């Protein structure tokens, strides 16, 4: 039963071209091994942030099989009573968490029979954290300090994420490259499981850095070459700062909009309950319509897999088509006359019921989203975005932005727009920049100087320097704006933003065909070096490609990727004569809001 349920949980990981379930299985194995190291009954104290990513690897049942009897959320003060032999802290290596752990350990009841403490650092062990525990005087209380290398977590059949929230900030603002080291390590793990990737392409400083580390790590482990036929043909490493524009734009795919509006975390979304409230009576006796409705979103759900990457304007039609099919299937019951036919019908019922409830959910979600996309506010905002992306009046103060500031719209919305204008104009005229800055500081508070300075350091916001605005050239050469984007039956990736083709994905597409040599000039206008490396394969592992067989490329977005970009890559994978299938990996799944937020100064003490 348990294993069946679990197999169901992860089945969607093995549907794709590359069986990502192998990676998940490896992660599970390591987890089991760790748990078995701490013999006896145990309680896990969780860093709450980790429960989401862990949920993608293992269910409670796995932990239970290995004598995990209690689980708590990490909190200050004294640990809850639990009659177990081991207390294991599952935490990210963060200093503030070390302080909490220290508090737990110090206030442990000395009169009770002592419990053994362990720490499991995820995704990596940290000497800095150990140092902190030492300073707090508790380091000696731990029997075991270990690390659980969870670099790349499989999110879907073609999607891996490190879910490292601060990766972009660390790389481009703090210049701390630790997360790049983890990236390289993660890629080494991937190669250990799926074979050496013969070709590496990259664009950007961080990409160069990661490639260097990988090549070096490979030299160091030269002895332990994996004898696995390579699954990936190519690795493409892309710096987020090569394409700062795309995440700033509002995503217009179904999944992208769900993320923009409600935020998807670890494959789940929380939605306002009203539209889902109707028929849920008789569930455990208590109805909780005030609690947000939580839904899991991945390709295991047939309908979702079908519509997630569509432009939202094409979702209504798809849902209604599906409704007709399901409806017809249910009608079949009237035609079932013989016992055999009835039996056949009944055997299909569970599947039909699932399809039905899936349809109900997505119809409700589509309604929620439609309320927003048809609002004047959404329309006006999108209009301005599209003006910027097509290069209209990007060198002037924009009235809509001014008005939005005057209305005290959320600061992040303002920052997204101002940054977008800056990126599309290759920097703002000093006078324009100063005007925006003054308006923002006057309306939202002077302390935001710090946030503005962060945005300037990462290049999202900048004054125009002497050089010419290169954005129009980039836009034209890479065909970033398509006049006739077809939302219903797309023929180009630009459908994901109703006209704008994400730069990052365009670069990926052009790499596959006709190759980057054709766009050397534009590549030089974008930040950071571009490069190509080859990794030697052990003899006998050279792949003999069948005629017409697709290539497999792993695209790694350093600093984050949006759902719309993922949709665009899936679109390329599915193109009939595309010739390449893409697996996507990233440091973090982002959208413009979460991204800009990660760059804001942490103003904990803000008075409002």
């Amino acid at each position, binding site marked *: 039963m348990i294993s069946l349920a679990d197999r169901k949980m992860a089945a969607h990981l093995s549907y794709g071209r590359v069986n990502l379930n192998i990676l998940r299985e490896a992660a599970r194995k390591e987890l089991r091994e760790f748990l078995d190291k701490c013999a006896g009954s145990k309680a896990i104290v969780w860093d709450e942030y980790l429960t*989401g990513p862990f949920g993608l690897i293992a269910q409670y049942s796995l932990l239970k099989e290995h004598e995990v009897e209690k689980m708590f959320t990490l909190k200050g003060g004294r640990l809850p009573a639990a009659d177990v032999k081991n207390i294991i802290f599952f935490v990210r290596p963060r200093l503030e968490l070390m302080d909490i752990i220290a508090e737990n350990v110090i206030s442990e009841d000395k009169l009770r029979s002592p419990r053994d403490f362990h720490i499991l650092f995820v995704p990596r062990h940290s000497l800095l954290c150990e140092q902190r525990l030492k300073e707090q005087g508790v*380091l000696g209380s731990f*029997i075991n300090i270990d690390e659980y290398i969870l670099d790349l977590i499989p999110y879907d059949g073609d999607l891996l994420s490190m879910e490292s929230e601060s990766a972009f900030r660390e790389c481009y603002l703090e210049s701390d490259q630790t997360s790049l080291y983890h990236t390289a390590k993660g890629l080494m793990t991937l190669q250990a499981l799926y074979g050496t990737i013969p070709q590496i392409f990259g664009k950007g400083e961080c990409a160069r850095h990661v490639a260097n580390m990988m090549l070096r790590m490979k030299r160091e482990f030269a002895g332990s070459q994996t004898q696995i036929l390579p699954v990936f043909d190519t690795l493409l490493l892309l710096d987020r700062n090569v394409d700062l524009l795309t995440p700033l734009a509002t995503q217009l795919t179904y999944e992208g909009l769900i993320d923009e509006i409600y935020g998807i975390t670890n494959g789940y979304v929380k939605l306002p309950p009203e539209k889902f409230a109707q028929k849920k009576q008789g569930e455990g006796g208590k109805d909780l319509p005030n609690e947000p409705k939580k839904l899991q979103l991945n390709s295991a759900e047939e309908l979702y897999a079908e519509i997630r990457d569509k432009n939202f304007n094409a979702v209504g039609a798809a849902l209604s088509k599906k409704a007709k099919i*399901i409806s017809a299937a249910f009608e079949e019951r009237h035609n079932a006359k013989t016992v055999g036919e009835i039996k056949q019908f009944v055997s299909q019922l569970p599947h039909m*019921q699932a399809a039905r409830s899936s349809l109900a959910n997505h119809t409700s979600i589509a309604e929620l989203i439609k309320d927003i996309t048809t609002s004047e506010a959404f329309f006006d905002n999108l209009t301005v975005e599209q003006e910027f992306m097509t290069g209209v009046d990007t060198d002037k103060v924009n009235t809509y932005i001014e008005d939005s500031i005057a209305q005290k719209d959320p600061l992040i919305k303002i920052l997204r727009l101002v940054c977008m204008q800056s990126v599309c104009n290759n920097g703002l005229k000093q006078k324009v920049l100063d005007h925006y800055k003054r308006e923002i500081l006057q309306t939202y508070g002077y302390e935001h100087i710090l946030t503005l300075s962060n945005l300037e350091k990462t290049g999202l916001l900048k004054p125009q320097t002497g050089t010419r605005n290169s954005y129009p050239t980039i836009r034209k050469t890479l065909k970033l704006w398509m006049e006739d984007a077809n939302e219903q039956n797309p023929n180009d990736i630009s459908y994901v933003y109703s006209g704008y083709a994400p730069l990052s994905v365009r670069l990926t597409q052009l790499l596959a065909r006709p190759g980057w040599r054709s766009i050397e000039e534009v590549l030089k206008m974008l930040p950071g070096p571009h490069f190509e490396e080859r990794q030697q394969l052990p003899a006998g592992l050279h792949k003999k490609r069948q005629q017409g067989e697709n290539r497999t490329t792993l695209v790694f977005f350093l600093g984050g990727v949006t759902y719309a970009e993922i949709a665009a890559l899936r679109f390329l994978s599915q193109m009939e004569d595309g010739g390449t299938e893409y697996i996507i990996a990233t440091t973090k799944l982002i959208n413009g809001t979460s991204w800009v937020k990660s760059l804001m100064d942490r103003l904990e003490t803000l008075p409002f």
Partner: protein
Amino acid sequence: MIRSKPDEEDYWNSSKFRAFTFDDEDDECSSLKESKRTVNSIPLDDDEDEDEVEKVSWSGEPVGSISWSIKETASSTQSSMRDQGFPKIDTTPSLTKQGSGYSLSSLFKGRSKTGSFPSFSESLSEVSTRSFAPELRKPKSEYKDYVSDWTPKETVKRMQRGKVYSLETFRSLKDKLLLLDEAVSALDGNVITAVLIYLKKSLSKEIISRELMSREIALRHYIHYLKEVGEQKVLLDLLKSLGRTEDMALLQYREHLNLKDELRRQDFLKNCVSLPFAPDDANHVQDHYTLLERQIIIEVNDKQVEGKGQTDIFKKYPRKASILNMPIITTLYYSCFYHYGESEGMYSSPANIRQTFKISEKQYFLTALGARAKLKAWFDVDSLFTTKNWLGYTKKRSPIGFHRVVDILQKNNAPVQVLQEYLSLVEDTELRISLAQKHKCHDIIIDTYKDLKDRQKLIVYRGKVERGSPEDRKIDSLLNNTQIRWKN
């Protein structure tokens, strides 16, 4: 904000842009409705097949997922705690632990990553004492003498693999720097930071900043480390010695956020003013200081006035919150609300605030309008927009577009006469008509059609007003007026 919809649609249709609109609004709506209908019409089988359908709690969490289980197991503990009643005194001596049957070595037959523990049998012997007074014990590694002469390279490797290592053997500056360079070339931030911590402990600030100047990567890690652990002072000195004065200034300025007391905050900001900011930031910080200074004065004064209970405005509209630490625009709004009409010499007067903080005309008008409209002070609204020219004629003028004025007035439930006055000032006739329709100002619509000499539109509009109403009569008399030269 109001924009004329028909206008916009023309714009979209004629320009090369594609707006994100539902091409066929009705069709789209109906298709969603239709799928909803279908869904609801399909019979619902209540007892779903347990084996096939994953159990999901109402919050959507699959039953058995980790976050679900935390709630579950945690709540069961709570109840068991309640059952327990008084805490039981544990009579088992804690030292029995040492004699307990389980073997620790069995826990760690795999590779160990516990860098600080030389051997597990040793840590076992410490267990009992440690749990009584953990803070008194130093971990073994700190005093244990290592008989090791690992090279920098070996040491870094050991650190990376979580094996026992010792940094104390690197005594000379030269050795320490070799170690640092080795860590940097291993590219492992974790190890770099650990080495830097050792260097920080064993070297003077001057030497560290001198040596890091030529080691960019190590320097970045060091700065990040100092930020993480909150070593503000060390960091400021470092940035200063590196000549990164603007960073230093911002970092220091940031500290004000940790000061809760407004007077201390004010003093702190005063000192910040002279820090080496970039020129425009310097102005902003100066403004920030001035603002807080003013807010403190206003707050003291208004609190007192409000307390006395003799001033109408405070009696009628008690202050909801203190004005301290609010943004300048909020402060201006406050001033327009409670201190409108005060002479320019007063710190709390709108005019003074506007001038001191160089608030743009647009922002000023919007804020003043918002505050006065909220108070339904229509007379103030009137004078806000009235200007006299040199001949003494008065004229209405607005830097924000009268359509927005109308919008704000309407949101504050302005009477029709007031709305009409500003509606008639909206220059774009189409926009004026659509706004007038939205706010049901018939006179404006009728007058506009008259001005446009559009007889046809007027006839159509007559169909929309009530028979025999004043509007109806007005239209009639216009249509019968032979003086007007209609264009159609």
